[in-house]
């Protein structure tokens, strides 16, 4: 009991300090690092989206950047082409993503293992192909520009300084929602389905239902990040559906630690800040070299430390957690459905 109380107090104090730091940060940073901080926040939300599906449901959903991109395109089209408010763009994007998630989920979630991965990859391919080919609507490869700056009751988030706080508030809402979700009955049911679907089913948990809840929430998080991104850089093009966005956020989740709340945060900080430090090294092709370093790191993490940085820290400093989750921590993917291939 004592230990539990202490842990709770410590983590509350820790969270308070972090929150204070996040609020005070814009006063300490210059414009460039402030810009990166907003990017980090967007990455965190997007990484949380993948993490919910991969870490808590055990589904490798590679379609989350598609949801991100589709939401960005919807708000861009509504605000630029139809001249509507950016908040209507947000609501429309979230609504559309719920419908799309329900439709694609009802196809994909019935399929198991690799078949699920295939449907989601195909979905990403359809979105990417449409964004390029339907150039009359989406602007093709050159994309859509000059999105409006969000404003609320006369307060316009026109500077990076102000936008940071908008992003921070949205991030905190997302964190709270995900925290409540994974620590609720629904979250426990999701983890039960992840660890043993047949057992969960026999205990009266409908796997499809909880997968669907997680899947739709994944889409909503990605869509929120997409909206935030589109109105921040005020430009959207098919590259958001491509390689680097998918890689950076997948890296953030896997290296940070899948199936933990802190993992995507640690991973996103890493994936944005480290390249900036590497960029200071005067070597040619530093961008390609950084991808090589990162991908090697990713392979090593998956093979040697599947619980990621945050999972490793958690196991090291939290005895109770370590005992309860010993097997899962060794490899968060090891308790899943096996041998789904011929």
């Amino acid at each position: 009991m004592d230990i539990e109380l202490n842990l709770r107090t410590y983590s509350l104090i820790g969270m308070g300090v972090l929150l204070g730091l996040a609020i005070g940060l814009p006063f300490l940073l210059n414009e460039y690092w402030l810009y990166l901080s907003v990017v980090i926040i967007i990455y965190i939300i997007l990484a949380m989206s993948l993490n919910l599906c991969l870490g808590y449901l055990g589904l490798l959903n590679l379609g989350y950047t598609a949801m991100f991109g589709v939401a960005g395109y919807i708000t861009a089209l509504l605000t630029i082409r139809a001249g509507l408010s950016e908040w209507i763009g947000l609501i429309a994007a979230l609504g559309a993503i719920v419908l799309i998630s329900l439709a694609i989920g009802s196809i994909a979630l019935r399929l198991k293992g690799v078949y699920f991965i295939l449907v989601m990859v195909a979905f990403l391919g359809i979105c990417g192909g449409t964004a390029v080919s339907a150039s009359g609507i989406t602007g093709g490869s050159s994309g859509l520009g000059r999105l409006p700056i969000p404003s609320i009751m006369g307060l316009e988030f026109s500077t990076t300084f102000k936008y940071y706080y908008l992003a921070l508030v949205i991030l905190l809402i997302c964190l709270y929602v995900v925290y409540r979700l994974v620590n609720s009955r629904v979250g426990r049911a999701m983890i039960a389905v992840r660890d043993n679907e047949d057992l969960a089913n026999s205990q009266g948990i409908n796997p499809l239902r909880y997968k669907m809840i997680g899947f739709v929430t994944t889409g909503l998080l990605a869509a929120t990040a997409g909206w935030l991104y589109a109105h921040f850089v005020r430009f959207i093009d098919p590259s958001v559906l491509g390689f680097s966005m998918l890689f950076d956020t997948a890296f953030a989740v896997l290296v940070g630690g899948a199936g933990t709340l802190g993992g995507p945060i640690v991973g996103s900080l890493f994936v944005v800040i480290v390249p900036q430090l590497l960029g200071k090294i005067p070597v040619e092709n530093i961008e390609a070299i950084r991808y090589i370093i990162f991908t090697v790191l990713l392979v090593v993490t998956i093979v040697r430390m599947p619980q990621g940085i945050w999972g490793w820290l958690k196991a090291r400093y939290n005895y109770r957690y370590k005992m309860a989750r010993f097997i899962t921590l060794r490899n968060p993917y090891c308790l899943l459905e096996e041998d789904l291939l011929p």
Partner: protein
Amino acid sequence: MSTSTLVLQQIVNGVSLGSVYVLLAVGFTLSMGVLKLLNIAHGHFYMLGAYLVYSFAHLAGLGYWPAVLLAIPSTFLIGALVHLAGIKPLHGKGYLAPVLSTLAIAFLMESVALLVWPGTVRLIDTPYNYVTYSLAGVSFTEQRLLTFVAALALTAGLYFFLQRTKIGKALRATTQNEDSAELVGVNTGSMRLFALGLSAALAGAAGGLIGPLFAISPGIGLTALFKALVVVLLGGLGSIAGAVLGGFLLGLFEAFFGGFVNAAWTPVATFVLIIIILVVRPRGLFGREELE
């Protein structure tokens, strides 16, 4: 050009393209069968194969065919290395961890390609691209013909290797039942290593053969993966004969869709095809039983 000639032309284009898809997909389905693995890096072996042929042919000054012959063992070695570093350590730890690992390796191969061959797309220049044959109004370059013949020859070679040789039989035994294969003395560990190397070499050969027909860029790896996926889904996961039929079907589908509907929408149509197949008939058009 009359409609029937146009149709014939698309059939010729589709079949020659399809022969390369067959080669790409038999390797994919082989690694799937033996390793029980969805290898996301498969298309990237194809991409590396194309780049290696380009480098051997143009930078090292070898001819086109020696370059292809050299690229095949090179991609075999790369495949074996990938297996040792990223797939073997995760054997027996569920299906998801190795898939994630091959995803990371695919990213790695793409970034290596970006570093080694930076800048614009590459074109493999062969003398065969400048010789055009014409038959009943249908025209095709000698390169297309040679690509088709070489791809067919390699696929047939693989088929006989799997059917007739001892290693081939051991590979099939590992596919069917690992424990039983172990019992009769098959070293399934080395079979898995060999299968991944072989599948990488086949993908590399496919890349080298199609390189002179299309521009090479690091992004073709992912496209090739999608094509291999469609083919094995059409033919049924793990079935070599299905992959052969599926490869030609996809080649014809692309040629006809591109020729008669809209070339720009061909990739999207292919992805829609994937989803339709998965919904309607997940075992594939020719798969015998549903794979769970």
